[in-house]
Structure formats: structure tokens, C-alpha cells
């Protein structure tokens, strides 16, 4: 097996460790740091260093090494933490992440960033604890850290300072005679053994060697456990052999302060490691890492099973109609149906991961953004354990980040302003996730200034949008999602939530979700994202046009009605709009757009389904509504190209394929067709805002 096979495991692990590290750093109380947390941060750095060393990622290894040293001082209380130090650590973590990404894509990491962060970290080491070091911290960076070394990282640092005169005291604890002889032989290979004495419990060897203590320990650890060995530097020859057991308090060695301390500190991380290990083991046994492909495959197969089951179901009910039904067959069918549903749910849940994965990045985002803006923000997250399909989790992160930034930037006021209007200085930003029916509801709430309706309307008019004073608040707030809205000039902090919001909305809609905004001037804004639970299954409304069956995503369907002649108005010759409760909606005749034969062409004989897509409403003319059903979404682009007006395909109960309609795509397609037919030259008329309902 090639070592490269382990790369992915390392990358994933390191990524997890880095996010752990970030989380702990963010949670860290600078004034009274929790030693458990410091240890956890240190261990994360140490583990990454070890892995990086093993795989030869030197840049990452060196960066981690320096950081690790600093963290070691911090957890031993020799380095007093300050907010700016934590910031630097976070920056180092970011750079390590970049380095990791670089290695992952088989590139060399950014040397400049590496040097800069190393320098910064070393500077901290010099400034903060310089006097405590025997030598400058810089050489520490260059020394090679041995990857195979134990959980105990302290020697790495200590030994480098200790090889001053090349004399080391190697103490072997509780080592059996035959192993000891072997070890001493090993030591002889590494350097000159000057004296040896002791018994099985503690055997001391004075070694003159040019190798670092790390290297020696690494060699020894092939034979014995790391805690059976103690390496200290010797100054002169005066070394007392009266040293206690490994876990015992500081040895009474007259050796200088630093090495002695190192001996002590050795025990604590070893203990911490011992404590940590069972925890890790438990976590490993309760979860396994599976590639998404495999899970997708299972989900597909289960989807197939469901389809087969409904095919059988249909056949059985046909038999029943012919009264040749067999009750045991029917019982079997209903059992199969139930089991298949359960299986489907269970399999779908494999892909579910808690929202925590998304939320965990926000403390950092909030911290950074708030810091930049000079605002004080308290972040509250609710419903971290709410589960969401993994494919959605990955895609929701960006829009959510955008909303959070917007809230911080435009929503929450500056501390002074808040105080002046009687609010607490610290603004509150709440991220919450919860289930609501078949959907998941994600909210970004702030207690900031809220949105100014009048201002939005004024702004919209300025931008040439079609608005009226009678629009509902919700509709007014939705204006911020209009493309280009508020990009024209600087918008005040009251209303300017527009930059890139159209992208946010589009992203969420592409996931089959929608965005709602509730806002009260002076009290805050609540942006709600409603998402389907999964992308793989969709609630659909099956419709018939001509002889063909299509699926409309149920989330887009608002209502359906039978249009009467009086409600239909012709516009500019070819275009038709329909009046539905004071609203004029563009009409899309599916049979025209998709060239369906034998369809009903008389609108008054067909059914108008009112649908909503990308914030606009349309009336789709269909022949017949068949009913609602859950469909398994199948990708069309895997084997074919993207089809305009069609978002995906699905398989119906009879095994045939039905296409899932893409509402905005259909609208675009219908315009394009009409345009091609009419050869409209004046493209200005087709500007996106003109498409909105005329009023």
C-alpha cells in the first residue's frame, strides 16, 4: 500500500483538528483560560504536526511546530494569553488550513504566508517568553521535529535547547533487562555512552551524542513506551541519580530549571493523552467514514426499490379491481410498502448531518466581521442538532454567511448608537435551525435597526422598479433581492441589505428553498430560509399536458384555478396575462413552450397553476392535475445535457420517466420562443424589471 493512500485520511483528520482548534480558540476565555481547552488546542496542533511530518509536508509541519511550542507555553502558564495573541493563533490556523489545501491539491503552500506567520509567532515567543528561553526561539523552527514522537510534545522544544554540550541523561524506567541491553546497544549507535548505572526500575545512561533528544526518543520508542523514557540534558557531569517515578513530582535533580520542568510537564500531557484516548476510541466505534458516492448509490438503490414497490402496488390494486385479489398478497404488499418507506427514511438519514457543521464556522465569521466593523456582537445559535442533508449543508453555508455579514454590517448598530437609543451595547445575532413540517427553517435574527419600508420603496423607485405604496411589508422587503438593487450607490445602514442578495436568493432557490424577511424598524430583522429536507426527494405535483406527464415542485405551486375568458388579457399582441386577485401574471402555456402535441389549446378549458419562481409569479396552463406525490429526483445531466425549462427527471410508478419543470427556465424559454417568432429588435423592452407584474 502506498503511503499516498493515507493522505486523504490525514487531510480529513487535519481539517477536523483545525476546526476543533478554531472552535476552542474562539471559546477560550482569555483572562481565565481553561486548561482542558488549552490542552485540546495543543493536542490538535501536535497531532497535525505528527501527521504532516510523516507525510513529508514540511511547511505545514514547521508552522505547526512553532505554534505548538507557543501553545505549550500557554498551557503551562508561561505565556499569558491576550486577545491579540488568540487572533494570531487563529491566523496561524487559517494559514495552516491554506497549507493543507495546497498539499491536498498537490501544490506547494504559499511560502510568503508561511514565512510571515512563522516570523510573527516567533516574535511572540521572543517578546512574551523570550527571557524564559535558553536560546532564541528561531532555531526551534528549523530543527526537525520527529513525527513519530509520542503525545508528549514538550521534549521537542526542551531538547533543542539542551544539546548544548551534547550530553544527555537518558533514564529508562521499568525496563526489563533484556530490553535494556538492547537499548543501551542502540544508544551506543547514536553516540558515546559515558556511564551507565541503575536497576530495572530506573536505569540511567549518560550519552554524548549530537542527535537531539527527540531522535533518541523516537528510536527508543520502537522498543519501549514513551513514558518509560526520560531524556534530560546534562550540564557538566554532576547528575544525581536520585529521581522518582515518571508520574512523581519534580525530580530533585540539580540540573538547570528548564530541563527539570520538562520532566514534570511530561507527566501531565501523558495523563491528558491517556484521558483523551478512550474518548476518541468511543467516537470512532460509533461512527464510520463513508464516501458520499457510496451513500448516494444506496440512496439511488432505495429510490429504485420504492419505485418498484409502487409499480407492484399498482399491479396488485389492478388485480383487486378484477377481483382476483389475494389477501396474503395484499398483506405482503402493505408490509413491503411500510418496510420500503422505513428503509428509505433510514437511508436518507445517513446523509443527514447536524446544522452544527454549518453553525460552527460562524463564531469566527462574527468575531472577524464585528472586529472589523467595531461592533459588539453576541452570537447565539439554536438548534445545532437539527439535521440537514449533507448536499444542502454544503450549499447553505455561503448564503448564510452572506446573510450574517449583512446583518452585522447593516442591521446591528454601532455600540454607541445602541446605547443612545436604549438598547444594550452588545447586539444580539441569533442563528437558529429547526424543522417545520417537511421543511427545515433556518433563521438569521438580529436585534438591530430593522428595515425601513419607506426608504426601500423610495430606493426601488429610484432603481426603476415597479412598486406601489400598497405593497405588503413582506413584498417590500423582498425588494432587496432584486438583482442590482442597492448597488447603484451607497445605501444607508438602515436599508442597505442589497449587495449580492440576489445571489443569496438564487442559491437558496436552486436548493428548492425560499427566503422570507420579517423586519420591524428599530427592533431588528429576521431572515428566514425555508429549505426542503433533502435534495434527493421532492414533493411534486404531477400534471398532464397532452399525453405527457410532468412534475412541478410543490414548493413552487401556490394555487390552481380555471381561467375564465374575462380574466385573460392580451398584451402587445402575443403576450397574455391573467388577472388573479388584482395581480396580472404572465401566462406560460406549457404545450406551446414544450411543443406538446394534442394538448388543450383553449386556455379556458385548461387549468392555470399559479407558481412562484425567483420571486415572480406565473400562471402555467396545463391540461390536468394528477396529484401530489413524492418523487426521487434523478439527474438528467449525468447522461444528457441540460435541458432548458427542465430541472431534472424522475421515475414514475409505471417505470416511465417524467421531467421536472423549471419554472423560471420555462418562462425564459417562452420569452425566447416568442422573441424568435416576433423577432423583437428592441431588447430594452425585455429588461428584467419590466417582466414584473404591471400595475
Amino acid at each position, binding site marked *: 500500500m502506498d503511503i499516498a493512500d493515507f493522505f486523504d485520511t490525514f487531510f480529513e483528520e487535519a481539517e477536523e483538528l483545525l476546526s476543533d482548534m478554531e472552535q476552542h480558540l474562539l471559546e477560550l476565555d482569555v483572562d481565565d483560560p481553561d486548561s482542558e481547552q488549552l490542552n485540546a488546542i495543543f493536542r490538535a496542533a501536535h497531532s497535525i504536526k505528527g501527521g504532516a511530518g510523516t507525510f513529508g509536508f514540511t511547511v505545514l509541519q514547521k508552522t505547526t511546530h512553532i505554534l505548538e511550542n507557543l501553545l505549550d507555553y500557554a498551557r503551562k502558564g508561561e505565556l499569558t494569553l491576550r486577545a491579540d495573541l488568540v487572533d494570531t493563533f487563529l491566523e496561524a490556523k487559517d494559514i495552516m488550513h491554506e497549507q493543507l489545501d495546497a498539499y491536498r491539491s498537490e501544490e506547494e503552500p504559499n511560502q510568503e504566508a508561511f514565512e510571515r506567520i512563522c516570523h510573527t509567532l516567533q516574535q511572540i515567543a521572543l517578546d512574551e517568553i523570550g527571557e524564559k528561553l535558553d536560546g532564541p526561539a528561531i532555531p526551534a523552527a528549523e530543527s526537525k521535529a520527529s513525527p513519530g514522537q509520542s503525545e508528549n510534545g514538550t521534549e521537542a522544544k526542551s531538547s533543542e535547547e539542551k544539546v548544548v554540550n551534547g550530553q544527555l541523561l537518558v533514564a529508562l524506567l521499568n525496563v526489563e533487562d533484556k530490553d535494556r541491553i538492547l537499548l543501551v546497544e542502540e544508544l551506543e549507535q547514536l553516540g558515546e555512552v559515558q556511564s551507565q548505572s541503575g536497576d530495572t526500575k530506573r536505569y540511567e545512561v549518560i550519552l554524548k551524542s549530537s542527535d537531539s533528544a527527540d531522535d533518541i526518543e523516537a528510536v527508543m520508542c520502537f522498543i519501549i513506551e514513551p513514558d518509560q523514557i526520560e531524556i534530560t540534558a546534562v550540564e557538566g557531569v554532576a547528575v544525581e541519580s536520585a529521581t522518582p517515578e515518571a508520574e512523581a513530582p519534580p525530580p530533585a535533580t540539580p540540573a538547570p530549571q528548564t530541563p527539570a520542568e520538562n520532566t514534570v510537564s511530561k507527566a501531565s500531557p501523558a495523563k491528558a493523552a491517556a484521558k483523551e484516548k478512550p474518548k476518541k476510541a468511543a467516537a470512532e466505534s460509533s461512527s464510520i467514514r463513508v464516501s458520499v458516492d457510496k451513500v448516494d448509490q444506496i440512496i439511488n438503490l432505495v429510490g429504485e426499490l420504492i419505485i418498484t414497490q409502487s409499480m407492484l402496488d399498482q399491479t396488485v390494486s389492478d388485480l383487486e379491481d378484477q377481483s382476483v385479489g389475494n389477501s396474503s398478497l395484499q398483506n405482503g404488499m402493505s408490509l413491503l410498502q411500510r418496510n420500503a418507506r422505513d428503509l428509505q427514511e433510514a437511508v436518507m438519514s445517513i446523509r443527514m448531518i447536524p446544522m452544527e457543521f454549518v453553525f460552527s464556522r460562524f463564531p469566527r465569521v462574527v468575531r472577524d466581521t464585528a472586529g472589523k466593523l467595531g461592533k459588539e456582537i453576541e452570537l447565539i445559535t439554536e438548534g445545532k442538532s437539527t439535521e440537514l442533508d449533507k448536499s444542502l449543508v454544503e450549499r447553505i453555508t455561503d448564503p448564510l454567511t452572506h446573510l450574517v455579514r449583512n446583518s452585522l454590517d447593516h442591521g446591528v448598530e454601532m455600540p454607541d448608537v445602541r446605547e443612545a437609543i436604549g438598547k444594550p451595547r452588545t447586539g444580539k445575532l441569533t442563528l437558529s435551525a429547526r424543522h417545520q413540517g417537511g421543511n427545515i427553517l433556518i433563521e438569521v435574527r438580529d436585534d438591530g435597526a430593522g428595515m425601513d419600508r419607506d426608504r426601500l420603496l423610495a430606493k426601488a423607485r429610484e432603481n426603476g422598479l415597479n412598486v406601489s405604496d400598497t405593497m405588503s411589508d413582506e413584498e417590500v422587503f423582498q425588494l432587496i433581492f432584486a438583482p442590482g438593487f442597492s448597488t447603484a450607490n451607497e445605501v444607508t445602514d438602515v436599508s442597505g441589505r442589497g449587495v449580492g442578495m440576489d445571489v443569496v436568493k438564487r442559491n437558496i432557490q436552486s436548493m428548492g428553498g425560499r427566503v422570507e424577511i420579517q423586519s420591524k424598524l428599530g427592533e431588528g430583522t429576521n431572515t428566514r430560509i425555508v429549505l426542503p429536507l433533502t435534495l434527493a426527494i421532492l414533493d411534486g405535483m404531477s400534471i398532464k399536458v397532452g399525453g405527457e406527464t410532468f412534475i412541478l415542485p410543490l414548493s413552487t405551486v401556490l394555487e390552481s384555478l380555471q381561467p375564465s375568458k374575462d380574466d385573460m388579457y392580451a398584451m402587445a399582441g402575443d403576450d397574455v396575462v391573467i388577472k388573479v386577485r388584482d395581480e396580472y401574471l404572465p401566462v406560460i402555456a406549457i404545450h406551446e413552450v414544450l411543443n406538446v402535441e394534442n394538448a388543450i389549446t383553449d386556455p379556458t378549458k385548461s387549468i392555470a397553476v399559479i407558481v412562484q419562481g425567483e420571486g415572480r409569479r406565473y400562471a402555467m396552463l396545463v391540461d390536468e392535475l394528477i396529484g401530489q406525490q413524492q418523487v426521487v429526483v434523478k439527474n438528467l445531466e449525468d447522461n444528457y445535457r441540460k435541458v432548458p425549462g427542465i430541472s431534472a427527471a424522475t421515475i414514475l410508478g409505471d417505470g*416511465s420517466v417524467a421531467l421536472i419543470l423549471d419554472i423560471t427556465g420555462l418562462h425564459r424559454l417562452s420569452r425566447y420562443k416568442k422573441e424568435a417568432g416576433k423577432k423583437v429588435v428592441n431588447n430594452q423592452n425585455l429588461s428584467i424589471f419590466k417582466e414584473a407584474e404591471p400595475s
Partner: protein
Amino acid sequence: MSQANSGAVLAAEAENREFLVFSLGDEEYAIDILKVQEIRGYENVTRIANAPDFIKGVTNLRGVIVPIVDLRIKFHFDKVEYGGQTVVIVVNVADRVVGIVVDGVSDVMTLTPDQIKPAPEFGVTLSSDFLSGLGSLDDRMLVLVDIDKLLTSDEMALVESTSNR
């Protein structure tokens, strides 16, 4: 892979290729057998609006949505009929699964390199770019189609052209 005659020389055997022979009208065509995933009947095709006429639509192949191309329409045959004998050859090209409709599948042939002649320049319907040669077998002539190139070509409109990606 090769099940060549016992008389064939080993070295030559490696060069021999197996082809699936199918008919379009009265003509005989052949594609590399290794591209063929399965052969099935023609049924249940869901039409795709605004697609070229030779793309019959998509069908469900055990949960995978597969486009179906009628080569007879593509090659401008006069007689395009669908019946019990109409066959769909499911091929696997460029990580995609595509079904091609043909009039019938006759057999699997092993061709030695000297039985494969270079394809002459053709007319407009079938560019010789999409041919890997002409196979001669006694008095039969097989048109060896480079199915990879054909199905991934821009004119098939099966894959988004590379420039759009």
C-alpha cells in the same frame, strides 16, 4: 478479451478486435463490443422538448436516466419504424450511458487488422471523422463506427459542448 480462432497467431490475436454488428435499413454497421453495456427493446421513451429529432427522449434504465438516440433518423434513413424488433443498444461512452436505436443486431465479429480498411471520405450525413474504418468480411461490408466520437460530437447535441463548460 479476444476469443480468436485457434489458428490465429498470438501476436495478431492481440490486434484483433471484436465488434457488435447491427443493421440500419439494409446497411451493416459495427461498434466496438467493449463500448456495449447491454441490448434491450425499444420502449417507454419520454420525449424531450426542443431536442433534435434524432434524440427520441430519455428512458429509465434501472434508475438511471438515459437518453435514446435513433441513428436511423440521424443518418437520414427513409424508413424509421418502431416495432417489436426495434433494438436499443446501450453503450457506455465518455462516462455516459446512451441508448442507440437500430433496426436489429446480427452478431459479434472478430476482425483482424487486415480486414479493417481505412474509411474513404464520406458525404455530409456521416463524417468520416466518426468512422474507425470499413470492415470487409467475405462479401459483407461493415461500417465501423467510432461511437465515442460520434456520440460526444457537437452535432449529436448529447453533451454540452466543451466550450460551454
